[in-house]
């Protein structure tokens, strides 16, 4: 749980990098603007969460799932994010499941079908198995059922 208010901020360095990636090269982003975007991002998370949660509640589920988040994006009129999100989720799932065995197999099949070479290409991509946050056992769910009054 968040102990201090700063815990609800996103890391500035990462936010700055993401902004830089989006803007044309050489654009200056004022410090104030960076801070504001970072705060906006936190608010976005909260807004998306509450939208997604209302979809989960409607379906009488306690756990937010991918569909809820996608529905929330639509509700918030960020449909433009849907295709990239779908793509990213697919890639993420592949990366998580069976250490890419599935995707490797698929790729091999595809290569066979296409009769192409470079089998070693698939190998190169194995190394980026960065630390996926260990699933903290969701034990600390004290707030299980806050009474919802609205």
């Amino acid at each position, binding site marked *: 749980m968040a102990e201090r208010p700063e*815990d*609800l901020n*996103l*890391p500035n360095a*990462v*936010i700055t*990098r*993401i*902004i830089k*990636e*989006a*803007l044309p090269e050489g*654009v*200056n*982003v*004022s410090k104030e*603007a960076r801070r*504001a*975007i970072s705060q*906006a*991002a*936190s*608010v*976005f*998370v*909260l*807004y*998306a*969460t*509450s939208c*997604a*949660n209302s979809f989960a*509640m409607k379906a009488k589920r*306690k*756990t*937010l*799932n*991918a569909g809820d*988040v*996608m529905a929330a*994006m639509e509700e*918030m*009129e*960020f449909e*433009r*994010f849907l295709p*990239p*999100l779908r*793509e*990213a*989720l697919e890639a*993420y799932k592949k*990366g*998580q499941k069976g250490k890419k065995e599935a995707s490797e197999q698929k790729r091999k099949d595809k290569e066979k079908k296409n009769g192409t070479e470079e089998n070693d290409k698939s190998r190169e991509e194995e190394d*980026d198995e960065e630390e996926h*946050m260990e*699933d903290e056992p969701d034990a600390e*769910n004290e*707030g299980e059922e806050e009474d*919802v009054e609205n």
Partner: protein
Amino acid sequence: MSGKTVENKVERAANNKNVSLPMSRVKLIMKSSPDVSCINQDALFLTTKATELFVQHLALSSYNKGSGKQKNTLSYSDLADAAEETETFQFLTDILPKKILARDYLKSLEEMEEVDDN
């Protein structure tokens, strides 16, 4: 043209499959919402990714619409303008208030009082 560049950027972001924001932090923010109990891993990933897309979208569209384009800068007022003018960013108006001079504020306060008096 601005619409197109936004799309290009969003597309480029999509090509970058993994997220750079820390998912643990995003989870913390999500859990600070009072009636959320559990979040599955996919939902957490999607929210994190969406937040990245959002940051880029907000930055780029504020920049493209903003006045700082000639000066090659993205400033706070560009963001505040975007929040006010763009429908999808409307939820940001509370945290991106337009800056207003104290004297203008006092004036508007006075005006409000006058209205109340009448």
